[in-house]
């Protein structure tokens, strides 16, 4: 007997990598451009990547609220810690009470789950979902749009009040990604992604994601600005009615305690 999984997952990638972005200048791309050449489009995507890439430490509080079409819902609050230089991250649940103290610790290719009520660690499999969602650990990888996709300018258009560049991305041959086709609506003025649509190879639309709020921060470790999404809205296009809201607060880019990415530290949070 087995279990059907719906594609209602929350993928962490959009907010994790965005949240750990490192800002770089974007003067190379004109904010008044009406259309972008192939080269300019590639540069724009590389810029988006660059702004969202971080090699320093990162910590934030994340609130995730998932609502299902059948009326069920789930929400939790967690702390996210990340250190790209060592390929480590940690997710520590703080709310609700039933999840508090539970945590995921990723050390290189190992993913461990801590159950504080049992005081036990459990090695998670390669494909294990994260935080009771369908997210997998590879969803936590940083943004590599320019490396993984070929970008093509579609149009300059309006998204509400905003003038945006609409760019279509197709996965490069031989590269495995969650969504082979992407469309991005990038704010011409701020160069922040405002909307992202993910599609299957057949062209079937899977998810629409909105980024209505970004925060510009200075990372002292990188000595550059970082663009962090403060709010993300994910709408499932397959299971219509399923939606996820992600809110990031209290983002810190200060170097973390070297011992934070250890089992002992995570255990100590719930002792």
């Amino acid at each position, binding site marked *: 007997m087995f*279990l*059907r*999984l719906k594609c209602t997952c929350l993928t962490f990638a959009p907010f994790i990598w965005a949240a750990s972005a490192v800002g770089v200048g974007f003067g190379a791309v004109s904010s008044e451009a009406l259309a972008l050449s192939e080269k300019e489009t590639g540069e724009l995507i590389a810029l988006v990547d660059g702004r969202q890439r971080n090699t320093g430490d990162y910590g934030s509080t994340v609130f995730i609220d998932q609502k299902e079409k059948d009326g069920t819902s789930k929400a939790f609050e967690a702390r996210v810690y990340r250190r790209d230089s060592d390929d480590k991250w940690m997710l520590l649940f703080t709310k609700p009470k039933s999840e508090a103290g539970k945590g995921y610790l990723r050390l290189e290719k190992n993913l461990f789950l801590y159950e504080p009520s049992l005081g036990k660690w459990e090695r998670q499999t390669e494909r294990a979902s994260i935080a009771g969602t369908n997210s997998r650990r590879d969803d936590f990888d940083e943004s590599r749009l320019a490396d993984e996709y070929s970008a093509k300018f579609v149009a300059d258009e309006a998204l509400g*009040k905003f003038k945006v560049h609409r760019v279509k991305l197709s996965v490069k041959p031989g590269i495995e990604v969650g969504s082979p086709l992407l469309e991005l609506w990038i704010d011409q003025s701020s160069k922040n992604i405002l909307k992202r649509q993910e599609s299957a190879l057949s062209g079937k639309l899977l998810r629409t994601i909105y980024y*209505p709020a970004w925060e510009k921060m200075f990372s002292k470790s990188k000595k550059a600005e970082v663009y962090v999404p403060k709010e993300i809205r994910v709408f499932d296009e397959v299971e219509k009615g399923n*939606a996820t809201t992600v809110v990031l607060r209290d983002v810190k880019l200060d170097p973390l305690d070297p011992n934070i990415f250890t089992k002992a530290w995570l255990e100590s949070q*719930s002792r």
Partner: protein
Amino acid sequence: MKSAEVASLLFQVALRNLWLYKVKTLVIGALLAAGSFLAIVGLSLLSNVEKSMRESIIESVAGHLQIQSMKAKDSLALFGGEFFGRADVGSFADFAPYRDVILKHPNVDAFVPMGLDIAILGRGNEMDDVLDALRAGIATGDKRLVRDRVDAVVFQLGQLSLELAERRKISAGDADAAAQEADVERMLAPGAFDDLLSVPSEREAEPFLQFLETKIAPLSGEKMPIYLGYLGTDMGLYTANFKKYRIVEGEGLPQGERGIMLSQKIRETQLKNLAARLFDKLDKRVNKSGVRIAGDAENERTAADLPRQYSTIVGQLDRARAAALSEKLSVAGFRGEDAPGSGDVAKLGAQLKAFLTVNDENLNERRTWFYANVAPLIRLYQINAGETVTLRSYTRSGYIKSLPMKVHGIFSFEGIEDSDLAGATNIIDLVSFRELYGQMNAASRAELEAMRAQVGVKDVSAETAEDALFGSGSSGSVESSSAATSEVPASPSDVEKGDVLKTLVVKPVLPTSFNPEEVRSGLALNAAIKLKDFSKLEKTREELTLALKSAGLEAKVIDWQTASGLVGQFVNITRGVLIFAIVIIFVVALVIINNSIIVGTFNRIQEIGTMRAIGAQRSFVLNLFLAETGITSLIGAFLGAAGAVVLLVSLSRVGIPATSDIVTFLFSGPRLFPSVRWPVAVGAPVAMAVMATLTSVYAARHAAKVQPVEAMQEKE
């Protein structure tokens, strides 16, 4: 002549003819006897199996009737459906109104809410376990404890080293495999653990521990997860109404307590050490089913697989226990002289491989030795009563919900302990079931709303998202700036500045009980109904259907047989096959009877013509042929019935052994003690004789048409 005299004459002539045509009489009589025998034995056995199976199903999980939502996409299949997969059997958001209507019926004794689902039980590997123990040992600062646990790790590394060497034979030239093997050998080198043996702080030991946990432990591989079916129910109502439920170890799950009762069958077949399981399997097939190892493909496969399980034993031992076991094996004659290396692990592995090599001659002795000497040294079962396990289940929305649950005890269904079908489910409390199903209770809902209110996120639908987020009502800017942080590298005190970096004090909550009122109403997927009078089942089912409809409640009321799934249909299928076989035999008998009369008519034309010539009426001839058939059928059918009764009575004393798990379930125990169904034993031969006689009317009438002149013509 008086009619009595005619009847007497008719009877005498009929008997004379039956004797005269003995072969025909014997053939017809034997056919009727066989048909009667088959009908009585078959229908009596079927009736007994049905009764036993009914008891198994009704008294373990199903009850007499079940209710299921009309919105269900799949039929309820309490003992397994047609397909693997998670069936959508619907649900009742609140079963209380249904219960209230149903309990008003005078024939309803009890209403037990329930639901079936499946959970995943995650498992780590042995190396993770010993490393966790080592980490815990270091945290205590106890030198002796650390030394013991380091020794356990080194012992496991020895086994891992041998496994990697085996793997190398398959994947020679793999650079990654070579590097992994080198890592393990480095850890096995003398002095590799010296730093740990000086018992540093956990922080100092962290790099070394992380190396072991991230580079070495994954090499031990991943175990396949175990899928555990479970029934969520109101334990108080369940235990009061299902007579086959029996606690075999630990304690029961009290009303109002959270937890799980583990099925003994599941523990034996899924959670037991694999070497022990293979021993049990061979024992069952060889000693109970009488199938020898030699010559039986399945037994030979199992026996060949047994020595390979030595690692499931070695993996659970520390050095001291391993040495003790090695010593015992040596005394028993297994010296491990053919060990591939000189280490303790290699020697014990060779000893165990030799010990686990079984055949028909040594199986019983080895199995007994295993349980006496090996089992006490290892963790025979992965889960024991009193422990807490984490169940993970996919909610209806597709998300994983995990719940730590105490294993209060082990249970079985009395009489059907060996049945896979009856042992396919564990039992948990209804409140935990609802949580694993994805339903939130009032407190959880309130907490969730408080979290939402604190974050202050407004509701936005997919249809209006663009306008709401970027349209005229939006601020027109999506970007804000936060104050730049210090350019100076952070000191430890800086690290503690922000809230997100402060140490948390989160207290894990592991609820162990709930308010019993919570299971008096609320979500259930289905519910069992126990009746006072089983004989009124169908009438009650119809009346309950009507009563629910009248109350405006949509629900299907189904009987135990339908609710049990394919298993419940077994009796119907068997009955169909049996009746088909009886009908075939009967039709063949009737055709033979008819043919024999018609052929007999031609052979007996002179006789019939003579009878007619000396004054016998056509009716006399007609009745004579009918009497001959009737007497033959009646005697044959009753002889068959007598044989069937004798067989059933003798079987009722010795019993029919259940040869497989499924048959055990159908018999509701290891043996079926059938009883004679007297209405069938009397009715079947009478009915067969009457039918045979009636179907011979055509042929008899044909005989009665023979004219006296035909006899004379024949003579000429």
